[in-house]
């Protein structure tokens, strides 16, 4: 067994630890928010609810995720694409890390100083301090550099191994960072071209509809940037952990290419209730959104197939005999599996959200908050936690102990219980009308709002349980770093013998990128031209 390159390991670990630091602070904020809405806590005068909410969104949805993803991807790229990062790639990784971290620190300071209580969507014409937008730009630019590193390592591997099929982890990493690269162009234009000059006062007005459109052009693929690394774990790592095989290499790659194609030209489904976009283009992007559901339907089949074939190879019989031979007591399987299971209600909720006029039932209610606490905060987060239990030992030359594994199982269960209370209540009270992103209120004791309170209390309870679960994962991370020394193999699955050879068209990057760009142009050109011709601009406001 080749041990993980120590120097690469430092880069990976730096990302993972920063991610969990963000999770800790973000988790604390989240618990406080739940307590406030549940009526159990009044914040001291110098901390605003919306300040906390901004910090929570940014730290959880942008920092925890991006850092973990880059760290995880770099680890797999190092291991599968040559066994060691090229010097240029390692440099890009570190520079990216530093640039992102400078941005994060500036951003968090500005938020906690109360100069950027605009939430993590920072909708204009609410105008934050220019340093908030600069901080965000630095995080994005840093991530681009990290992405370039992955592209370069992959490209070099292709050149040295010409004619060979690229390793699945490396291939999927490139798709993920490519998706990110294309998606972030939207938010980069919004932030650099529109918001920074405007918040500095060099430009008086901002085009609000355009800024929202650029944000959501980014905002939807953002969630696939979160999801795809979890899918990498499910497709590539989990088969190894359960002692099985990857069901189909080609279908796995195809699903990723479909994500590249269909997760970007769909931003309007976050803008369905807005003026300024015609119902034709809204519906068109809804149709494209429904197409991005297909690779997830394929993934569900692949996952179950992997489990079933694993079971049958080990002699199980019947429809569900394969359940018995899965390593339920192994947190490296159990945590990602819970992520998979919870993706069922998570994805179902997403389909509802995107259903054109049906969005009116749920838009800006706590249902939406419930939805993304299932998707990113459970499916993706639990998968990331599950990865951590082998990733830290692998890169540090240590081993996972039975005690740590047990704590991991407990942490996973605690997370699921907390999320059941919190997200379950959010979905329900959202359907009853309770709005998201809103501090404690009873709207003058209106009967509808009084009806919501028990659910808000359940959310607060869920929030407390989740904070305990956050503290436990942070403890586990620290304990993993001090685990006994030893060698942990990087778990990469092998493809099943029954899987057909992978067709080469799946590696025709130019073609796939071309189709992705064509779809984006198709979905956005006419609405954007219309926006630029007909919409008006607005001055900025500081309403907090």
């Amino acid at each position, binding site marked *: 067994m080749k041990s993980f390159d120590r120097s690469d390991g430092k880069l990976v670990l730096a990302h993972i630890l920063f991610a969990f630091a963000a999770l800790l602070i973000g988790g604390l904020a989240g618990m406080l928010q739940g307590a406030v809405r549940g009526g159990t806590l009044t914040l001291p005068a110098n901390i*605003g609810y*919306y300040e906390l*909410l901004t910090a929570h969104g940014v730290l959880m949805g942008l920092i925890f995720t991006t850092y973990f993803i880059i760290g995880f991807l770099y680890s797999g790229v190092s291991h599968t694409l040559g066994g060691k990062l090229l010097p240029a790639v390692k440099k890009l990784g570190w520079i990216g890390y530093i640039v992102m971290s400078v941005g994060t620190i500036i951003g968090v300071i500005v938020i906690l100083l109360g100069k950027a*209580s605009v939430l993590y969507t920072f*909708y204009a*014409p*609410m105008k934050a301090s220019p340093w908030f937008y600069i901080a965000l730009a630095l995080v994005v630019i840093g991530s681009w550099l990290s992405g370039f590193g992955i592209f370069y390592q992959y490209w070099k591997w292709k050149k040295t191994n010409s004619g060979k099929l690229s390793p699945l982890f490396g291939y999927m990493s490139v798709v993920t960072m490519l998706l990110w690269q294309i998606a972030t162009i939207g938010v980069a234009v919004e932030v650099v071209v529109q918001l920074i000059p405007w918040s500095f006062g060099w430009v008086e007005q901002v085009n*609000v*509809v355009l800024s*929202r459109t650029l944000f959501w052009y980014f905002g939807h693929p953002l969630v696939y940037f979160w999801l795809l690394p979890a899918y990498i774990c499910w497709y590539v790592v989990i088969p190894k952990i359960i002692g099985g095989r990857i069901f189909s290499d080609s*279908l796995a790659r*195809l699903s990723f290419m479909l994500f590249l194609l269909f997760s970007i030209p769909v931003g309007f489904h976050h*803008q*369905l*209730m*807005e*003026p*300024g976009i*015609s*119902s034709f283009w*809204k*519906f068109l992007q*809804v149709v494209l959104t*429904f197409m991005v*559901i*297909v690779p997830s*339907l*394929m993934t569900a*089949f692949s996952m179950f*197939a992997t489990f079933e074939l694993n079971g049958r190879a080990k002699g199980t019989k019947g429809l569900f005999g394969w359940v018995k031979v899965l390593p339920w007591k192994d947190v490296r399987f159990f945590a990602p599996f819970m992520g998979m299971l919870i993706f069922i209600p998570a994805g179902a909720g997403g389909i509802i959200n995107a*259903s*054109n*006029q049906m*969005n*009116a*039932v749920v*838009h*800006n*209610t706590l249902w939406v908050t419930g939805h993304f606490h299932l998707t990113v905060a459970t499916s993706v987060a639990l998968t990331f936690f599950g990865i951590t239990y082998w990733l830290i030992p692998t890169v540090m030359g240590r081993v996972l102990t039975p005690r740590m594994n047990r704590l991991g199982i407990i942490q996973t269960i605690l997370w699921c219980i907390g999320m059941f209370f919190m997200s379950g209540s959010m979905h329900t009270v959202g359907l*009853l*009308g309770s*709005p*998201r*992103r*809103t501090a*404690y*209120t009873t*709207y003058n004791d*209106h009967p*509808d*709002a009084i009806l919501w309170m028990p659910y808000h209390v359940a959310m607060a309870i869920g929030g407390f349980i989740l904070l305990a679960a956050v503290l436990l994962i942070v403890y586990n991370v620290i304990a993993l770093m001090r685990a006994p020394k030893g060698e942990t193999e990087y778990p990469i699955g092998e493809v099943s013998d029954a899987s*057909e050879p992978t*067709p080469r068209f799946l590696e025709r990057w130019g073609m796939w990128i071309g189709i992705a760009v064509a779809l984006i142009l198709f979905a956005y050109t006419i609405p954007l031209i219309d926006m630029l011709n007909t919409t*008006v*601009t*607005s*001055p900025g*406001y500081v*309403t*907090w």
Partner: protein
Amino acid sequence: MHLHRLEKIWLSIGIGMLAVFLIVIGTMAFSMGIKPPSEHHHTIDPTKVSETAPFDQPGLRQTGDNRYEAVMVAYAFGFEPEKMEVPVGATIDFTVTSSDVVHGFYVVGTNINLMVVPGEISHLSHTFDKPGEYLILCNEYCGTGHEYMATTIVVK
């Protein structure tokens, strides 16, 4: 590329179901007029809302037999006019804009759920078949007083 027979069947069922969803919502949207709000695109100078008709005179006006127009302005942190009242069965055509930041306009218990964007005018019509005191609240974060931004509409 080879797909297992059962995967082909699954994907056909899955895609078929999604197609049915799309046909249902598409037909409702384009044949029955049940579509997302603000179909007609009108703009306004967001700094001159109080000087621009019809928002220079926000309010509830009867426009026909059990038909009303509600011309409303959302601002940080309230709605103008407040506390409207209509008889049961009334249809209200809402026309709403913002004089400052983005707000939400949500009538709890109904499908009236609009984004109110400065520079744009939001439209939606709704028939109030059930009596009650409906809570209208802002469901898009707009600043410190966001959680107080609400009014009511009484349907008698």
